[in-house]
């Protein structure tokens, strides 16, 4: 990592901003590959003529941008270990290796280079984007302490369908509308000055069958959260949300067996972490239109 930090300009690319398959490698500013290990690539770089090293080729990509006036929020999905009556716990690489039958088989497959047990135990990240209009829809006019209101549907639907996902198994996707069996998401005004503080509470049942006990895939979290809105700055200064409950499926070796706790936490992007530059995965799949109009995605 030190070699990269000191000698290269590191750039991370996904489907929508110039990336594609999984790879790591050195390039010139004009996009020419410098093959070989890091030090070999550096030698090739130093051997290039000055003119070649200064030549910049603008890439033909139009990366997704946060809508003007919108809000970017970090999302962390963490697989947890549960036992009856106890607080769900983080899992560790050691725990996975000691109890491999409790985890997807590929996590401990020695040929699996991309997604080791250590990485599986860590949270998976994503980004939630809200438009300026959606941000304003969360701010009540003339707020009164104790007043409560439902989170507006476009925001609630996006959070539930695009972000309350079990991304810990490597692929995010989204929930079909008819899998959302019930959902409540309420904001209650706790104080109005100097910042407007609202507590979020709710519960969601997502399952592929109406009879949840028979469903093969789902998530059933309780929601809690704290949102602070600064009227002087006209922006949210805190957007902490937590979904915590059991998830299960889909059937097959790819998934963790049985029902297990999953935590999904949200917090504001502060611009001090590389992930704050990321875009929501769902902009790629199911796509931008479906993401911003979550009610229209099937």
């Amino acid at each position, binding site marked *: 990592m030190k070699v990269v930090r000191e000698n290269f300009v590191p*750039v991370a690319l996904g489907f929508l901003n110039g990336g594609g398959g999984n790879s*790591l490698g050195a390039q010139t500013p004009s996009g020419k590959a*410098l093959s070989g290990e890091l030090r070999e690539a550096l030698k090739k770089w130093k051997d290039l003529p000055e003119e070649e090293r200064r030549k910049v080729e603008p890439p033909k990509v139009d990366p997704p941008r946060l809508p003007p006036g919108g809000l970017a929020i970090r999302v962390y999905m963490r697989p947890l270990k549960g036992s009856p009556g106890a607080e769900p716990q983080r899992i560790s690489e050691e725990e996975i290796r000691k109890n491999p039958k409790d985890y997807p088989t590929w996590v401990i497959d020695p040929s699996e280079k991309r997604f080791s047990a250590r990485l599986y135990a860590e949270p998976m990240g994503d*980004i939630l984007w809200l438009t300026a209009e959606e941000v304003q829809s969360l701010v009540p006019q003339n707020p009164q302490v104790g007043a409560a209101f439902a989170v507006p549907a476009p925001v609630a639907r996006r959070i539930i369908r695009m972000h309350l996902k079990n991304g810990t198994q490597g692929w995010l996707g989204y929930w079909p509308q008819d899998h959302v069996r019930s959902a409540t998401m309420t904001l209650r005004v706790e104080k109005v000055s100097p910042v407007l503080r609202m507590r979020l509470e709710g519960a969601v049942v997502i399952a592929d069958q109406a009879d949840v006990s028979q469903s093969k895939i789902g998530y059933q979290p309780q929601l809690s959260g704290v949102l602070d809105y600064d009227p002087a700055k006209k922006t949210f200064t805190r957007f*902490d949300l*937590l979904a915590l409950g059991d998830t299960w499926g889909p059937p097959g070796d790819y998934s963790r067996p049985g029902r297990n706790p999953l935590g999904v936490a949200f917090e504001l992007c502060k611009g001090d972490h590389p992930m704050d530059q990321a875009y929501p995965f769902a902009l790629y799949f199911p796509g931008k239109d479906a993401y911003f109009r979550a009610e229209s995605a099937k």
Partner: protein
Amino acid sequence: MIKQAAYFIISALPALAQDRSGAESFERRHAHMKPQADEWKWAQVPWMSDLGEARKKAAAEGKPLYVWTMAGEPLGQC
């Protein structure tokens, strides 16, 4: 009057304690889900995500790019 005030305070204490306990529980659980100090080692590298800007910076600083590409979005789903 004093008795009434005392009664009000005493009767409100359990609810206040519950609120505080609930708030502490939320803070603890929320922090529990986030990456811990020994996790997300990839974030120790100052990754950029705008290829055009990264190429300009590389040329200006006289450095090559180190390009990490991934299906999905690497600065999250990695």
